[in-house]
């Protein structure tokens, strides 16, 4: 029956099996592919081989009943891709099943199991740090990007995970990655922003959130904010994820400017990353936070100028009855590690050394009671304070307890806090914080990191805090400068 206007393709698949009903359905599906004249997919039983021979196919002599024969007849003018299309249809039909939504089907117990049978999607890991690598490696094995929110992951595990990911062209965001925005979807703690020309690569969660919110206030959107984890630019990790994230953003035509925000990288790593960034098609704004370097707000302003956008005045909300400082020390209580860091850098330049649980130098470390008879700043999101409890952006109890003690301390002159809004954070942080602040005698300055689209309602949060006597800023650097001015008795 073969005529000059058709050609045949016959192949034998070993190890494949389906029942004859399924194969008849499949044969019909394949016949429906444009360019296919007739098709028969069947187990190579003697009967089926006879049928194929009658149809005029050249049947492989050595096929056994345990093997599947795929016989295709296509028009001579059919595109060369028709065989691949038919093979894809067959493979898909043999390997996919209707999604099982039946009641009583137990949920998957591992990431690998959850990924079975899926073709895309990202993985979000937030199990305890000792088990995070194993779940994340399932994602890498499956070739899926993964965000590791978990902290307390040993650095050697981070290196091993990222090396495996690099070999498979997978992006690992984290570990200890609090914030990411992937194609507009916020993962972890992420503010609701519009898509736009900026792509962020961030080794810090709250630093990333501050940039998202400042850019949003300036009406500049962010396409992606890819977290890489706070240690990515350290010498042992060597920027493995930073490079992968930069490459991803460079490949996305919607990204006009990449902003890389991090603490200053390890010496050798900085040079490598700068060289790598210089080789990309997309310009990269490097925002390395450190002594004598621009703060996050300055980085946002620089990015806006490079995009040709206007730099707005960053919003400030003053309380009706400002409190006066009776003299004393500046006390910062933070949920965001990078916001705490930035505040120490900004305030330290004016006030001198600041003691902290995440000190700028080891000699400034605080003891376990988190107090000292000088300026102090505490990061409640630090690993040591989150082991065995939720992050302070979810559970504010620890900070509220310390707030009461600090406010009762006569040496406290001014209080500086951050409030971080967005997906994943407490649904109404002001509900407990505002009443606590209303009890405080000292001046209070709060940086509220949020956008108008965040689920907590930025305006309502700001009103509640201002109503409790706090002065509220969007810029953490501006809030810190204001707190410093209040501390040294120079209210500008």
């Amino acid at each position: 029956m073969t005529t000059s206007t058709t050609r045949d393709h016959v192949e034998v698949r070993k190890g494949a099996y389906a029942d004859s009903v399924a194969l008849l359905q499949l044969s019909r599906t394949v016949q429906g592919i444009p360019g296919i004249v007739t098709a028969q997919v069947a187990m190579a039983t003697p009967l089926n081989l006879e049928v194929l021979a009658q149809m005029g196919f050249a049947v492989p002599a050595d096929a056994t009943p345990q093997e599947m024969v795929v016989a295709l007849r296509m028009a001579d003018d059919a595109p060369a891709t028709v065989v691949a299309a038919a093979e894809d249809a067959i493979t898909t039909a043999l390997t996919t099943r209707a999604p099982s939504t039946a009641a009583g089907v137990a949920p998957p117990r591992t990431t690998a199991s959850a990924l079975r049978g899926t073709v895309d999607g990202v993985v979000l890991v937030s199990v305890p740090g000792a088990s995070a690598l194993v779940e994340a490696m399932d994602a890498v094995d499956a070739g899926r990007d993964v965000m590791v929110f978990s902290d307390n992951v040993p650095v050697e595990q981070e290196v091993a995970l990222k090396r495996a990911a690099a070999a498979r062209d997978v992006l690992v965001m984290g570990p200890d990655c609090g914030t990411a925005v992937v194609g507009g979807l916020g993962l972890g703690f992420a503010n609701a922003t519009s898509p736009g020309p900026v792509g962020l690569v961030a080794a810090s969660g709250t630093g990333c959130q501050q940039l998202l919110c400042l850019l949003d206030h300036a009406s500049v959107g962010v396409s992606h904010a890819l977290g890489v984890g706070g240690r990515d630019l350290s010498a042992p990790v060597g920027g493995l994820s930073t490079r992968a994230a930069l490459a991803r953003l460079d490949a996305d035509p919607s990204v006009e400017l990449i902003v890389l925000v991090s603490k200053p990288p390890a010496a050798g790593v900085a040079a490598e990353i700068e060289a790598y960034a210089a080789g990309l098609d997309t310009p990269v704004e490097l925002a390395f936070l450190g002594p004598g370097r621009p703060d996050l707000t300055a980085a946002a302003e620089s990015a806006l100028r490079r995009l040709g956008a206007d730099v707005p005045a960053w919003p400030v909300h003053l309380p009706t009855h400002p409190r006066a400082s009776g003299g004393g020390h500046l006390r910062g209580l933070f949920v965001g590690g990078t916001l705490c860091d930035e505040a120490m850098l900004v305030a330290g330049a004016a006030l001198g050394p600041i003691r902290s649980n995440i000190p700028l130098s080891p000699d400034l470390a605080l003891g376990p009671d988190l107090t000292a008879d000088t300026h102090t700043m505490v990061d409640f999101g630090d690993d040591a304070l989150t082991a065995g409890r939720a992050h302070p952006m979810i559970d504010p109890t620890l900070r509220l307890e310390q707030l009461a003690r600090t406010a009762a301390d006569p040496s406290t002159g001014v209080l500086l806090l951050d409030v971080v809004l967005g997906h994943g954070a407490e649904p109404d942080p002001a509900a407990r914080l505002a009443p606590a602040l209303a009890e405080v005698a000292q001046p209070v300055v709060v940086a509220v990191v949020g956008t108008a689209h965040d689920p907590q309602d930025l305006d309502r949060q700001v009103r509640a805090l201002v109503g409790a006597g706090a002065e509220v800023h969007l810029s953490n650097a501006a809030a810190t400068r204001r707190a410093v001015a209040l501390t040294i008795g120079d209210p500008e």
Partner: protein
Amino acid sequence: MSTPPSHVVGVGADLLADAVEGQAVPVTRVDWRPPMAGTEADLATVATDPRRREANDGALAAMLATSATLVDVGPASEVLGLERGQFLHAGPPIGWDRTSGPLRGALMAGAALEGLVDDPEDAVALFEGGDGVSLEPCHHRATVGPMAGVVTPSMWMFVLEDPATGRRTHCSLNEGLGKVLRYGAYSPDVLERLRWMSAVLGPLLRTAVRASDPVDVTGILTQMLQMGDEAHNRNRAGTLMLLRDLAPAMATSGADHANVAASLRFIGGNDHFFLNLAMPACKLALDAARDIDGATMVVAMARNGTDFGIQVSGTGDEWFTGPAQVADGLFLGDYGPDDANPDIGDSAITETAGIGGFAMATAPAIVRLVGGTVPDALATTRRMHEITLGENPRWTVPVLDFQGVPSGIDVTRVCRTGILPQINTGMAGKRAGVGQVGAGLVTPPAEIFPAALAALAARVPR
């Protein structure tokens, strides 16, 4: 990458999954629980072994690529080179002093069968003295044996071969149910049946097998899984298909008609006859996955009535053992849990290969025999997919929309989930000589999996 991900897999905090769903992106939530105690560091070490992924892919592929055909039948002295005084047994290695009742009974029957003693009771002194007798696991001789698994030189064996490689495995002929050697019985009728099997059944099967095309055992397994057999506690369809393949050659063998009829009646009357082909077919497939550095796949699960042991691809011939458990199920007659011996037999090779308890969903007819319900059976097969590396495209389960059986038990996934392999099993009486007392469900002792994991971790190159 400009569009948001179509779907997120969330493992860990529900709050973060809620936040994603709040943005109208669906989340598959993993029901994550902490791994088996003390395994976190070893799990991380093994997960970062650069050889692991390819090793496991290779192990699974090697297992799935194996076909088993029945090519011969012959006495163990001939096909295994087993010599007088050499005894094979099920499970990991064991000495007489630690053997359980059913293994003792089977060894005593074997000694009498070989003429080492006249009365099976006299064999106790023989094995205690140890002169001229030796015990060795079936698994060490490319063999598997159900229950006690005792093989002696005069017993006739099925010989299975992988046509692609010529590798072979072996198993004795199934004696039937009730008072039989493999359950530890050694009465005169047990020995008489064994002598008939060696004198009549074995030679007739050899003639028939040699005169026929090789029987495609793997292919029969494909079919029987679609006919309600899970190939460990139900082998009814498989047994009948074997008869279908061999009966013509048996009829034309030239053997005495009465013997042919007796043999056909014996096979047809023993629903478990095919078990002794399913087991070596599974071993043949799993042996293909042995000795792959970095592979975390279990290649054998076996019990000797005292210890439950596993072997793992990446750790060579090492056995990881713990105390065998007593099955939970139904009892024959007046027998009860106090009469049952701990788990025994190499037949868990079927579960190791993805059938038996792993394919419980396909055998609703026997779920009550092993004390379960149909929903339990479906849930069991689904649960086993949580601890296996993949699916077997040849061996499918119609009621699960033709999903392949869960294949390639992964030590790391057992440790991560705490889900233990589910085994369907017969129960032997704990006193020597009693025979079968029931059937039920059993799992390995949990601690052998962290032990195997630690050995895998110790082998990861630094």
